[in-house]
């Protein structure tokens, strides 16, 4: 089990009592989402669709690396990892 921090974006802070940073124990991104859901019921459905995949407009990063370049939900975590959840990137 790794001790990680999850950054919660503004649109989801309503579900986490206004907390923008949550500490969790989790092995993978998938279990981190499950742990978030256990603490804040309802958050999982925002992040994951009916097929169980991370929603396509939800970007998840581990230490600033997009999980799509890693192992998506199966990406393993280590102590001190920082996870951030950000809506999709727009042009400029």
């Amino acid at each position, binding site marked *: 089990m790794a001790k990680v921090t999850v*950054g919660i*974006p*503004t*649109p*989801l802070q*309503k579900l986490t009592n206004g907390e923008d940073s949550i500490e969790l124990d989790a092995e993978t991104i998938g279990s981190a989402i499950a742990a978030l859901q256990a603490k804040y019921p309802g958050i999982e459905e*925002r992040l994951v*669709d009916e097929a169980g995949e991370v*929603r*396509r*407009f*939800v*970007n998840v*990063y581990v230490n*600033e690396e*997009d999980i*799509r*370049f890693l192992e998506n939900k199966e990406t393993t975590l280590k102590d001190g990892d920082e996870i*951030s959840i*950000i*809506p*999709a*990137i*727009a*042009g*400029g």
Partner: protein
Amino acid sequence: MAKDNGFMKALKCRECGREYPLEATHVCEYDFGPLEVVYDYDRIKKSMSRKAIELRPQTMWRYRELLPVAGEPTVGQQVGFTPLVKADRLAKRLGIRELWIKNDTVNYPTLSFKDRVVSVALSRARELGFETVSCASTGNLANSVAANAAAAGLKAYVFIPHDLEQGKVVNSLIYNPRVIKIKGHYDEVNRLCAEIAGKFPWAFVNVNMRPYYAEGSKSMGFEIMEQLGWKIPRHTVVCMASGSLLTKIHKSYQELSKLGLVEAPEDYTIHGAQATGCSPITTAQKAGLDFFKPVKPNTIAKSLAIGTPADGFYALRCMKETGGHGEDVTDDEIREGIRLLAECEGIFAETAGGVTVGVAKKLIASGKIPADDSAVLCVTGNGLKTLDAVIGHAGEATTIGPRLREFEALLDDETKSTAKA
């Protein structure tokens, strides 16, 4: 009340359809889907006619009802209505019957299509009570925000990747905003801005103001149709960073059709252009996929260097619906595209324009744009902004002493070598 919102009705999620009030918010709370402005087309139909539009000033605001500003625009009133140039020499070179260049290299005030989206975003930001405006940018947007904010008396912060072309950096600094360079690529700059936008009461034109901002791109499409005599072009080639411009060109064609302002369109096709070094969308299109794989950008076309394009899905859908193709070009092909456009039509475009021309060349050569057809190329920014990309690749000047004899000898040599060739 309808009067308070102009011709706008609400913001709506493009994924799940949930509606939101017309405030500075850009993502659906439910699934992070992007929000889009929804209009009251019945009321708009009564207000817009070809005659009415033709009498209005020659700016992008002649299509006011379809732009998301409730009252009169207070920023960027002079923007748009750039030339649609008939490009006969380039058409011949590329092997197509008819070619037009929508020339935003001369857009006012900062020589790129960004002035369209910024004037909308800043006018709307003012309506919503913001005093500080901001953006994450690969350059053109920062220039535009800085300039338009200065003219409007708004405070501005612009965030850019640290390795942006010098021309673009100075082009923003000169208007006296705060310019912050981020040690990362564009996607990282944008991510930071999303976090800042969550904490500070600023109007980030391409973050929390994005639904309004994006709509400004439609004006490019409206103008193309009007300038062609109220017709939709048979083919349109649009370069893609986030993919937003392509989707909004499509929307503009659909809206004027819906309002009965253009002749009932036969088929029209919209093609997408990217740089090979950052081609998540065109790669997906060529593979027949509905989704793209994010990439790490590596191209001289910095203005198109977005590895995780927010409108990628929708751009793919537009191309699919209209039978369009995605194609990409290498850095050398980009430079060739810039040179071709300049040599044939006297238009100096930045790297994104080189991408568009280079891709059009490929699509015509492969028959994906039939030689017998007509096409419009959307050229989005001026070449002076990306000089670095063409220095050393624009041919050479010859040096002689200030003597008539030397000049005549030079001409003589050139005549001889032309005769040989």
